[in-house]
């Protein structure tokens, strides 16, 4: 199976007033092409942080301090992969929402309350499919101009067309260039000697110059009132949005686009969030607890939707949840996280039938079973505060089978049996 994206011991810290929260403690995850990968753990164990780090959208005061996030789906270089932590922000923006995209828990808060649905969904198109949008717009204008129009309107349309043409041209030249420049820069990253440093500087300058594309276009686009002409192009975007929403089974989408988030039900909101994520047919969809705080029926709908999307559009899904049932239902492989560590990774079936890590076992035991008679048994103790986490294996304070090595050193993630990785001293040869 082809690797799609991989994190190599990722460290992410949060610099809060209480102190440095070591949220990620060297997390390594591999998502393969075409699979649904689950990330399981209690709330606050660092699932979300992991994926956000993968997309480099960790908000202040968070910071990725070490590690790699390597992607393999850009044609540029399949064998070696590209470490996106070393790429420019521009590169990332071109990546996010395009080839990797993300849906969140709490759809209600992850939509901007003051912007219309149409706008928020449309943005994805604007960012990643702008060229296409412009082309279509121009085509439409041409069509309209072909049949006879009042001369003032005609003038206006011609003007618009000209501007769009110009913008399109600028955009294309920009995109071709920026990619090229970025790639070169990335190449230089790896070997660092004198003149390459010099070149790096030059390239950076060049990139900056590129960034403020064409002054004229930017001015027209931003300046109040003048920017009004954009409406025409927004129309095109809207069309696409409506199409997208309909395809996601949103009832009467052409009304929904003009709504604001607060006017929609929870499930609807979540659908919108998904729509935003899927606008550009990403390779990888990261679903961060998409079903929490939705009522059960809606949950089912959303899950089905994702499943079905998995078949149609997206190649892989990285599914985050604290709900083991869900994992069992949809995931192929899964990792169990605890306090910023991956404790176990394996095929889902493997995990459920033969859990190795004491924590995993604990989790499974604490799932209420239908035929359960005795009381629900739980893991004693609480999730440690990550400001000063337990030394060595972070689970040892709560671990039933704790050994004296556990507090000393952090257990490495070892492949216990083929495809079944676990990080626990029970299975390291270092058992004395």
């Amino acid at each position: 199976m082809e690797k799609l994206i991989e994190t190599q011991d990722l460290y992410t810290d949060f610099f809060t007033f209480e102190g440095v929260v070591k949220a990620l403690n060297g997390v390594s995850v591999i998502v393969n092409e075409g699979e649904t990968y689950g990330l399981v753990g209690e709330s606050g164990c660092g699932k979300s942080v992991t994926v956000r780090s993968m997309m480099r959208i960790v908000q202040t005061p968070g910071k990725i301090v070490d590690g790699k996030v390597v992607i393999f789906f850009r044609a540029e270089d399949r064998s070696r992969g590209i470490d996106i932590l070393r790429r420019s922000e521009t590169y990332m923006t071109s990546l996010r929402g395009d080839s990797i995209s993300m849906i969140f828990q709490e759809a209600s808060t992850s939509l901007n309350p003051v912007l219309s649905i149409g706008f928020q969904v449309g943005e994805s198109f604007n960012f990643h499919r702008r060229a296409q949008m412009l082309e279509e717009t121009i085509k439409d204008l041409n069509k309209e101009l072909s049949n006879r129009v009042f001369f003032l309107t005609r003038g206006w349309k011609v003007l618009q067309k000209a501007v769009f043409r110009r913008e399109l041209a600028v955009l294309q030249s920009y995109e071709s260039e920026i990619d090229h420049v970025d790639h070169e820069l990335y190449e230089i990253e790896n070997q660092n000697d004198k003149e390459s440093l010099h070149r790096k500087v030059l390239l950076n300058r060049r990139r900056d110059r590129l960034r403020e594309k064409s002054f004229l276009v930017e001015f027209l686009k931003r300046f109040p009132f003048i920017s009004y002409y954009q409406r025409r192009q927004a129309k095109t975007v809207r069309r696409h949005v409506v199409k997208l929403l309909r395809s996601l089974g949103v009832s009467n989408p052409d009304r929904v686009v003009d709504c604001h988030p607060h006017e929609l039900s929870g499930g609807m909101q979540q659908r919108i969030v998904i729509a935003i994520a899927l606008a550009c047919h990403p390779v990888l969809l990261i679903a961060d607890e998409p079903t929490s705080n939705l009522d059960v029926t809606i949950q089912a709908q959303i899950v089905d939707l994702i499943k079905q999307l998995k078949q149609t559009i997206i190649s892989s899904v990285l599914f985050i949840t604290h709900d083991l049932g869900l994992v069992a239902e949809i995931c192929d492989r899964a990792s169990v996280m605890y306090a910023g560590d991956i404790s176990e990774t394996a095929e889902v079936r493997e995990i459920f039938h033969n859990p190795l890590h004491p924590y995993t076992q604990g989790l499974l035991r604490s799932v209420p079973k239908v035929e359960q008679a005795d009381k629900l048994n739980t893991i004693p103790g609480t999730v440690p505060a990550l400001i000063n986490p337990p030394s060595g294996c972070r689970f040892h304070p709560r671990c039933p089978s704790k050994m004296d090595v556990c507090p000393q050193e952090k257990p490495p993630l070892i492949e216990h049996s083929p495809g079944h990785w676990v990080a626990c001293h029970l299975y390291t040869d270092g058992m004395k």
Partner: protein
Amino acid sequence: MQAGAPFLLDGACCFQHNNPSHHGCIYVIKSSSFQESNHLSLLNYIIRRLLFMILVLFGVSLLVFSVLMLIPPGMRVAAYVTSEKIPPDQIEAMIKLYGLNDPAPVQYFRWLAKIFRGDLGFSATAEAPVLDGFKRYFPVTLELVLYSTPLIILVGIWLGTVGAIKKDRPADHAIRILAIVGYSLPTFWLGLLLLMFFYGFLGIFPPGTLSVEANEVVFGSGWNRITGLLTIDAIINWRWDIFLDALYHIALPTINLVILDSALIMRLMRSSMLEALGQDYVRTALAKGAPNRVVYQTHVRRNALLPVITISGVLFAGLMAGMVITETIFVRKGIGWWMARAALQLDVPAIMFNVLFLGLIFVGVNLIVDLIYAAIDPRVRLG
């Protein structure tokens, strides 16, 4: 100066941010269906607010008047007594003449009746009927407001945004200190310092509204006074020298007000920007691949503006208070200057009128604020 305003402001910005209006007349409704059109409800909201406005104004007039009635007639008559040579019995006669001895209700309703007859009384401080005084003084103030308010808002929002974006970097610290110093400075002191340096030492930016020569022109024949706003009239009369002269005189007071009042907006804007930056939808936008600029300009700023808009009504009150001092210092004979004198000389008609006028503006501004708020924040339904 910031008299009063920061009271309200701090109260507003740190504890009432969830309540968009200071009047509690605005409701945040989560409506699940989007059939309803809110034009009708908007209309009757405005109507209700106008009624409310009238109510408030009535209350204001009653309150202020009764306060003024607490002052003994012998003191209220002083507004008409210009020299020490006037013997006591003549003062008595005046008290009788102006009916200052009558019971308060009688006086109040006499005053009310006069107002409805369009007679606002004679202001001893303006040495003219109140309306004439108003016509004379208001444009001066209005002009200053027109120049300073946009600057205050722009500077405040701009610096606030910069501060938030560059949080904990030198720029941010600089701006924070600027803001905090800005609203710690006594208006009058800053004014005096500016005056001492620019006018006293450099000999530029004199106080007043116009230079002597310009004054001659403006009051002379052949000058048609349309708006009363010097700069505007200057343009209408196509006298750019006058225009420049007016600007030249308005510069210092404007700077004074901007330094003082933008500090408040700066502060609020910064904190609300920071708040907005932490919201989930920012994350969504980022995940969408939005470049930072777009995130700030489209997603964050609009949300961050809400609290700022909320308090701008209060800010206006602060601005008006600032006028009293600024105009007194820079000898701009506007409403503020007039009110200061009226208050000191217990010029009852002038005080009553100005208080009502400002009350009207204040309530009006708040209405507008609510409307803007509703326009920006779709969650808010007026009704």
